[in-house]
């Protein structure tokens, strides 16, 4: 094979020799569209988000409106998901719960990702910081989380409520609490990835060019550890939604008249025998969301890797 012949890019046979500037976003988008699971995930997730945002305007029943005469009803046109033991409309509650659960999940995931990635990259790249940061990570992993959460919430709930109002206050508190107790896995995974990437020759090459450390991290290390970060992110949303549910269950999450998916699920558990739809709907909402996000993560990870991109 002659060395001077350049093979055409895979997947686009006979493509003209382009000099058009390739942008990362366009490349990633083009490849993402090829990933069936990713596209399906994106469609489902977007539908859930849109439904949760605009649903309440179409399905105008107040989620808190009591109607004891219509309690524990099955599926009907007025109540597409039935009603609970106090006659509240389940569909309205699931929509309202979705708003809270999704915003908590996404915000907490972003926070935990930010903390985890920063700590992981710093620990992996700068040997001097490694020992200290990893002991810190171990410490957080070893902490009994639930008691810790309890204490934090007990200590700060009232202060935050007073400062931001009951809803925003508890939202911030929960996001913060979930964020700072779930970054450890991300940090470990990212550190491991950084350790292996930084030994690669292209990093040595960057050093020999005189690339500044900061830019070695942002241009060479970070893009090459995106896959584990993406995976952490998708798992992170799922864990955050589930942790929030657990907190709500313990009465430490949002106030009881403030539905979230987790809260609905746990409230429904006692009535599972009489009215199984009370756990099915919120459970389905959580599963669908988590699953679709996982597929999006999968597609993104592949789309972000130029070596796979050609396929």
């Amino acid at each position: 094979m002659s060395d001077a012949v350049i093979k055409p890019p895979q997947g686009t046979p006979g493509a003209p020799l382009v000099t058009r500037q390739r942008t990362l976003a366009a490349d990633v988008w083009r490849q993402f569209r090829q990933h069936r699971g990713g596209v399906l995930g994106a469609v489902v997730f977007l539908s859930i988000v849109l439904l949760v945002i605009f649903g309440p305007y179409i399905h105008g029943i107040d989620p808190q409106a009591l109607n004891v005469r219509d309690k524990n009803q099955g599926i009907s046109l007025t109540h597409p998901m039935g009603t609970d033991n106090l006659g509240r409309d389940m569909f309205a509650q699931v929509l309202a719960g979705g708003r809270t659960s999704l915003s908590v999940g996404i915000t907490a995931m972003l926070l935990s990702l930010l903390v985890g990635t920063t700590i992981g990259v710093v620990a992996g790249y700068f040997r001097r910081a490694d020992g200290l940061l990893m002991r810190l990570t171990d410490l957080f992993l070893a902490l009994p989380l639930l008691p810790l959460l309890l204490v934090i919430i007990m200590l700060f709930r009232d202060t935050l409520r007073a400062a931001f109002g009951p809803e925003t206050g508890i939202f911030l508190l929960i996001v913060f609490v979930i964020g700072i107790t779930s970054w450890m896995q991300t940090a470990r995974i990212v550190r491991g990835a950084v350790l292996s990437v930084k030994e690669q020759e292209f990093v040595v090459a960057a050093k020999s060019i005189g690339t500044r450390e900061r830019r070695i991290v942002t241009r060479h290390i970070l893009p090459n550890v995106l896959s584990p970060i993406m995976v952490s992110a998708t798992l992170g949303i799922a864990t955050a939604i589930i942790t929030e549910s657990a907190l709500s269950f313990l009465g430490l999450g949002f106030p009881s008249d403030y539905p979230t998916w987790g809260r609905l699920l746990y409230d429904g558990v006692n009535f599972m025998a009489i009215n199984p739809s009370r756990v099915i709907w919120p459970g389905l909402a959580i599963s669908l969301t988590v699953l679709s996000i996982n597929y999006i993560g999968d597609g993104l990870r592949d789309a972000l890797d130029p070596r796979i991109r050609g396929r």
Partner: protein
Amino acid sequence: MAVDLATRPGASSPETHPLVRVEDLLLHFPVYKGILRRQVGAVRAVDGLTFDIRRGETLGLVGESGCGKSTTGRTLLRLYRASGGRILFEGQDIAELEGERLRRMRPRMQMIFQDPQASLNPRMTVGAIIAEPLIEHGVHKAEARRAKVRELLDAVGLNPDYVNRYPHEFSGGQRQRIGIARALALDPDFIVCDEPIAALDVSIQAQVVNLLKDLQKKLGLTYLFISHDLSMVKHIADRVAVMYLGKIVELADVRTLFSAPKHPYTKALLSAVPVPDPTVEASRRRISCSRATYPIPPIRLPAASSAPAARRRSTDVFRKSRSGGRSIPAATWPAIACKEGGL
């Protein structure tokens, strides 16, 4: 355009100063053990090297895998911090430079890596890879950068239209050309070629070596050419240094070295090179090193007693091979090394 600078000062004129001078260079990798990670010893990867590289020449550095060739190259470029000794680049000691002053030296000396796949960031386009040194060293105008990148691609024999491709879309030889283009981007004087062809198909090796030779002629480059392939070194080098366990055992003009090797290790290396002539090849004698008595991992524990032990072990490195090679006591090595290494 800088790539076709006709001649550089010193490229053609006879030079009295060497471009690079290495004095008693040491590089020890610490070895840690136990949960407390205490340092229990050191790998003496580079163990007292002294040599010059003249402006415009190619110094070959040969030796078997693991003898410290790459480490030497990387230490010269200050990718590692020398444990001792001096590295004089145009008379200036760069062994102790730090921070911004070191960064400003970097453009003068570049490296071409062994594995062209591993040395290119898979997430960057070829254009971005070659432009990186330009960005880092102050070519801020995007237009100027783009033009320079195209010139560089052209200079290494690649189609300039491929700036937007990713490294995995190229063959091994083409990737190595990309690596060469990146090394040339800052108009260096000195390039360490760390086994630049070892990972390539045999059919492509010659092309890359010839490209390196052409570029050297055109740009007045100085090379440290690291290789374990003696026939390639014979082809490209002006002088050759033979390295063994972190030390240079023989350094001589390429012709002298190949026709009249002095050191037993050099002879052993040369005896391993196949000869493209069936009759000669059939009668060729191999001097071999017996694995069992191989002198060591180059780890020396700090305990004083281990040093003589290591020396004792190394005295019978060369056993008589079955084909009848002579046995030469290794104890005489340092003497030869001194004579040849002194230059």
